[in-house]
Structure formats: structure tokens, C-alpha cells
């Protein structure tokens, strides 16, 4: 028998999509039965009470979690989000219901062993509820009591060789697309770089010393499967500089209808026979392709590596060989002054361990600048807007180029530096008045 009546959320059990309510109930039941006789370290009925508080929220149309809660593990400034219920008498099982952010392995491949071990810890010490994964990328262990935080931390470090991720004003858990591991479009090993940076900057990740949060994300190509350009302060996106590799025979096979376009992504509807002119050439944003006499030509100089043609004909077209990444800076969510996309900062850089150039010329100078100049709770993107993109270029020693802009400024309000203007700014009004009477 359920501890609380939940008529409203029960309605979320129907329908084809996996029901989180059903899952939550299944966990509640499992804990109630406790077949394995576990000595749960978090209230056994935590899931029942979560169902209950959720039902209450559905009734009121308002959350029933209190504001914040400062808890954590010793020596770390993040990785834990404290949370308390605002109806603890009614729902004692979730009176304290903190989450822990466990740093996911780059690319999110798992062995069942790892997962099962982690589940064992969390069943014992937490609510038995998780998020696979949080929006930043962490494994989110959802709901435990304060005394268990250190215990879980001890267990995951000792038993699972795994650490917490970020929260607070620090480097957040970096994340990446699966990259070369299973994608033919990847221009660099996103997982390797993501892993490297996560470890290289453990201190920045665990000990808040920044004005606000900072995020890295790594995308193997400009399809941007980890959405780096929209939500990371520094995003690394794979690209290349030389020709797209063309297999002319395979092109013909596409034209002949032997291979489904876009790897079959549109197979659900009859879009008619493949039309290379319309579908590929005509959609190329730069108009740099030609298909004539059975031959496809790409004018590399004009190509912006948008991936479209490669996406449509992955068996015929392949990314170039001279690979690296484009770095964009400053993406963030809308709070406070509106959302920002990452702005292109480095058009091309080779990606090679140990990434010295990137660390020394890009990441660290940017952090220094931001730590020096950034206001409390000011994201990098906001600082760039406040102090200018030019300032970011100065800080990173990058020369301004037309590629940095979508279009040049349309207001002519150029700020000059005194040293750029012959004679400087100090002038003598009396000298001027000799030639110009009042």
C-alpha cells in the first residue's frame, strides 16, 4: 500500500513514454520489500515521501523544496547540492534530500560492473534515485541525508576510483560528444581531451576560485552533438583545413539511389528519389559545390565546413585530413542579460596532447583576465560583452580577423588608443585658439 495517495501523478503512468512515476513506485516497492535485507542509510520510505511531496506540488502547482542548503564534502567547494523539504513533518523521508554530482567518464560509456557497483552504493546510502545524466553531464545521485555525503564520497573514491563533479563558482564537469570512438565525423578525440582537461584542472573543478561557473565542452565536429556552442564558456569544435575527401564512385551510388541519403535519417517518409542538385548542392550554404558530368567538385577555399554534404553522403564524403578545432568563447544561458552563443575566437588549432598551446595561450590567460576583472556572478560571455571582444583578443594574443565577425560594426563609434593617434590626446587649447577664434 502506498504511503500517500497520488491520484494526480498516477495519471503520468499511462502513455507509451517511460513513466518516471512508475519507476519511482517500483523503487519505493523495492525498498519496502527489501528482499536483500539492506540497512538503508537514507529513510527506507524516501521514495514514498518523494511521491507524496511531488503529488503535493502537483496539487499546489508549486515546488515544496526549500531554498538552497549549504552542505558538502570536506575540502571541496562543490559537487553537492543541498536540499530540504518545506513539509518535513509530512514527508520526513525527504526532509533532507541532497544530490551529489558524480563526474561521468568522458563520452558516457559504462561497464555494467561500474554501474552496478555505483547502484549498490546509492541503494545503501541514498534514495536509490538518480539522473543519468545531469544537464552538464554528471551522474546525478538524487537525494540523500547530510551524514551520508562524506560516506558516499569515500565510497566512490575508494571503491569506484571516481570523483565528484563541479557545482558552485568553479570549473564545471567538462563533457563531450562520443567523438572518434564511434563517429566518423570526429575531427579530434573529444573524449581524450575532455578527460585530460578534467584531470588537469581538478583544483579549479573542486575549489571555487572563479567569479562564477565555467564550462568546457568538446564537440568532434560542427554538428555539435554535445551542444557546446550553446552552453559552454569555452567550446572546442572539431574542423579541418584541407579538402573534403570525395569518393566519386560512392557519389554516383547516391545519385543512382543505391545508398539512402543522410544514412537513412529520412527513411520514414517518401521524399522521392534523391536529387543531388537540390538536396546537396542547393543546400550548401556557400554554393561552393558543383556536380557535373558525374563528378562532384568542392571549392575548399569557399567551404565553411558546415557538415551538410557530409551528413547527406557519409559514404562518399569524408572530413579532411588536416584536422583540429575551432574554439568559441562565452556561451551561456539567459540569466542575467540574455542567452549567448559562443563567439568564434580561434578559427583553427591543432589538437594534440598535452594541449600546451591551448592551456597556456587560451584557457589560462582567459581565466586570469576573468578572475581579475569579472564581477561576482559574471560569466565569461558577459565580461567579453562588457569589456569588448577586442579585450579578449588582447588577453589571448590573437590578432583580429574578419573571421571573428559575422559582419563588421555598423556604428562608426571606434574607440582609438592614444598611441594609435598621431600627436596623442593632450593638446593646447591656446595653440588651437590662435587659429580658431571663439
Amino acid at each position, binding site marked *: 500500500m502506498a504511503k500517500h495517495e497520488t491520484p494526480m501523478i498516477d495519471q503520468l503512468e499511462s502513455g507509451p513514454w*517511460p513513466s518516471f512515476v512508475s519507476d519511482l513506485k517500483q*523503487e519505493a516497492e523495492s525498498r519496502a520489500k527489501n528482499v536483500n535485507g539492506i540497512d538503508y542509510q537514507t529513510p527506507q520510505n524516501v521514495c514514498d515521501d518523494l511521491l507524496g511531496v511531488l503529488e503535493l506540488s502537483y496539487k499546489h502547482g508549486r515546488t515544496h523544496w526549500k531554498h538552497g542548503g549549504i552542505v558538502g564534502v570536506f575540502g571541496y567547494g562543490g559537487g553537492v547540492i543541498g536540499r530540504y523539504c518545506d513539509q518535513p513533518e509530512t514527508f520526513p523521508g525527504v526532509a533532507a534530500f541532497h544530490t551529489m554530482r558524480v563526474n561521468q567518464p568522458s563520452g558516457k560509456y559504462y561497464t555494467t560492473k*561500474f554501474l552496478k557497483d555505483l547502484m549498490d552504493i546509492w541503494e545503501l546510502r541514498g534514495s536509490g534515485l538518480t539522473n*543519468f545524466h545531469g544537464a552538464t553531464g554528471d551522474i546525478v545521485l538524487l537525494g540523500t541525508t547530510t551524514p551520508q555525503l562524506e560516506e558516499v564520497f569515500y565510497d566512490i573514491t575508494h571503491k569506484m576510483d571516481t570523483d565528484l563533479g563541479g557545482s558552485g563558482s568553479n570549473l564545471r564537469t567538462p563533457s563531450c560528444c562520443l567523438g572518434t570512438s564511434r563517429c566518423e565525423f570526429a575531427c579530434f578525440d573529444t573524449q581524450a581531451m575532455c578527460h585530460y582537461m578534467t584531470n588537469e584542472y581538478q583544483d579549479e573543478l573542486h575549489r571555487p576560485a572563479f567569479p562564477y561557473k565555467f564550462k568546457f565542452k568538446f564537440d568532434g565536429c560542427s554538428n555539435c552533438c554535445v551542444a557546446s556552442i550553446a552552453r559552454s564558456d569555452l567550446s572546442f569544435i572539431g574542423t579541418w583545413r584541407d579538402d573534403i575527401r570525395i569518393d566519386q564512385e560512392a557519389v554516383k551510388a547516391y545519385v543512382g539511389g543505391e545508398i539512402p541519403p543522410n544514412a537513412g535519417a529520412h527513411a520514414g517518409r517518401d521524399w522521392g528519389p534523391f536529387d543531388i542538385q537540390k538536396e546537396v548542392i542547393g543546400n550548401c550554404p556557400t554554393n561552393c559545390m558543383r556536380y557535373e558530368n558525374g563528378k562532384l567538385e568542392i571549392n575548399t577555399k569557399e567551404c565553411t565546413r558546415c557538415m551538410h554534404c557530409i551528413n547527406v553522403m557519409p559514404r562518399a564524403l569524408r572530413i579532411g585530413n588536416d584536422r583540429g578545432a575551432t574554439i568559441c568563447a562565452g556561451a551561456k544561458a539567459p540569466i542575467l542579460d540574455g542567452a549567448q552563443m559562443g563567439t568564434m575566437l580561434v578559427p583553427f588549432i591543432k589538437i594534440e596532447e598535452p594541449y600546451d598551446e591551448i592551456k597556456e595561450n587560451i584557457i589560462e590567460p582567459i581565466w586570469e583576465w576573468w578572475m581579475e576583472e569579472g564581477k561576482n556572478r559574471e560569466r565569461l560571455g558577459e565580461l567579453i560583452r562588457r569589456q569588448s571582444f577586442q579585450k579578449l583578443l588582447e588577453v589571448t594574443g590573437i590578432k583580429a580577423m574578419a573571421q571573428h565577425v559575422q559582419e563588421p560594426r555598423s556604428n562608426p563609434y571606434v574607440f582609438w588608443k592614444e598611441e594609435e593617434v598621431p600627436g596623442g590626446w593632450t593638446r593646447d587649447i591656446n595653440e588651437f585658439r590662435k587659429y580658431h577664434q571663439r
Partner: protein
Amino acid sequence: MAFISSGYNPKKPMEDRITDIGPQKFDQFYPPVITANKGKWLYHEILEPGILVHVSETGDEVYTIRVGGCRFMSVTHVREMCEIADKHCDGHLRFTTRNNIEFMVDSKEKVEPLKQDLASRKFNGGSQKFPIGGTGAGITNIVHTQGWIHCHTPATDASGTVKATMDVLFDQFTDMKLPAKVRVSMACCLNMCGAVHCSDIAILGYHRKPPMIDTEYIDKMCELPLAVAACPTAAIKPAKVEFEGKTLKSVSVNPERCMYCGNCYTMCPSMPLADTEGDGIVIMAGGKISNRISMPKFSKVVVAFIPNEQPRWPTLTTTIKRIVDAYSNDANKYERMGDWAERIGWERFFDKCEIEFTHHLIDDFRDAAYYTWRQSTQFKF
């Protein structure tokens, strides 16, 4: 309950402490076929919705079955996945950037049994545990946030709105009939933890009432200057208030200037915003992230407010369905929703989606608002 120690000694927190080790190295988790073929993949194909094959230059193949994950998962559910992966995939699996689960096998024969197994599993309530789909020109999982399950600032629930919406969009999850991918994202407040600001369709929790002030407690619980400084519109001013005969330090909020962003509440628990009737949902549309054909772009607000109609938010889901259908009927192959709206003109978007345009949708936030107005005689009647 008896406290079971992990070995941690609260008196000597540094004893045996392991810190700053980061996550385990990713390649320890690779299935063998991935280890063997990493960086050697030649091409891929979507064999049917949810089922991909990647072919390597070594001749190896990896078959991936993608299944919908509702992200909020119990230990029991994860163990069930593990059981499946043990049975079919030599103990490996992965999660995607949109919270789906991918089961990989190294030969075609292994696909069918795995598929059968996945399809056969249902929750007690009747929903599928592991629906196969989410690939190609369709709708994949909705990335989302905490909502009423765990957060203190939401204006709506996350898991519930997502469940209701995915039920309505389920066909698009399992077929690939759309002109291009449609990415639906959900965030339960303006913090937009899901980065829904660049999604084809975004479901966004939104407050509509200025914060209340818990006068009696505010000075004890908050750093007033921080609360004042937090407000992006300078709506908050320090104030002195008479309360039960005492003069208390507090703040006042100018409701005309407040845009209900909740930033003050983030800094100060004595300024709650939540309200049954004030809270609800904004629908945004036409954003994208990929650089394919067109550049990434922000989603635009297309419905200023839908009340919270829990548990199944019918107005929300039918509106979304209408948008998806209109797009599906009208867009060109490969054309993302935002590109479609721009091609036909946003005035036609509203016509075709049968959404009423209201004054709320005209940008009035800061100077840059101007750039979204129409500075041309080119428009459609």
C-alpha cells in the same frame, strides 16, 4: 537503521582521503569493438528508427540500439539495463548527450534478440521501459531539468511536462518522417539548466509574479545588498519596514520593473516567487545548435504563457503537437524548424501553427530588442 561507515572518519577527515582523481578513464568502458575501431570508422547508417550501424575501415561493424531514457531513473531501472547489457552486449552500454541509452552489439545477428528483449519490457503502469527510437529526422528525448522533483526555483515540473509531451510526440520518436531533427528541451525556470535557448521547441517554466518579501526574516536570512545587486532590472531597493512595532531592514520591489527572473530568490530565500496562478510555461521555437547549412540560432518565444495544467498539461502538449505537425507538413527536407520559420516568415509560422501572436512576443528587453522588429516593408499580409 545502523550507521554503516564507509571507512570515513569524521574526526580525521584527511585520513586515507582520496581527492582530485577525476573520473575513470573513458576507454576502460569501451566495448571491444569500439576499442578496436576507434578513429577508424568509415560511415554509418540508420537501419531503422533507433538502430544504427557504424562500419569501420577494418571491416568491423557496431550496431547501436538507442532507447528512450527518462533520465530520472531508479537503481532498479539501471540494474535492469545492466542485466540487458550483460545478456546482449558483453556488459557495456552508454548514455547519449540527450539522456538516451545505447546498447551496442558487434554483429547483425545480435540485433534482433536485443530488440525483442527491449521491446518486451514494460512498467507496471503500462508505459514502455525501453522504447526504441530517437534517431534521424525525428524527435529524440527531451533534455530537461529537476522541476518539482528537486529544485527550489521551478515554475513548473520537469519530468511531468516531459512525460506528457513525449507521450504526444511518441510517433515522432519511433518514426523518421520529419523534414529534419526536431529537438525539444525543457527547463523549469529562467536559469535554463537544460540550455533550452537553442532548441527547435523549448518548454520553459516561467514565473509571472514579483517576489514576495518575507519581511520578518529577510534581514536575518539574506545579505540585503546581494539581493539588491542581483536584480538585473534594478527593481529592488533597500527599504525600512515597520513590523510589529519594530523597524526592520528589508527591501522593496518595484513590480513594474520586475521580470520575475528569480535572480533575487537565488540570492535570498526570503523572496519567493512561486505562485499557483502566476506560474506556468513559455513555449519557444525555432532554435538550433548544429552549424549544418545555417548557423546556430536562438529559440524565439512563440507562446508567452500557458498555465500549469498538471498532471498532463494538455494545452502545452497540443500546442507543441500543432507546431510539429505544421512544420512537418510544410518544411523542406533537411530544413530545421527555425529555418522554415524564417523562410516562410514568422507571420506565416503563426498562421500555420494556429498560434495567436500577442504583444508579449515583441522584444522589449534592452536595446537589442530593436533588431528583432521589422525594419522593412517586406512582410506578408
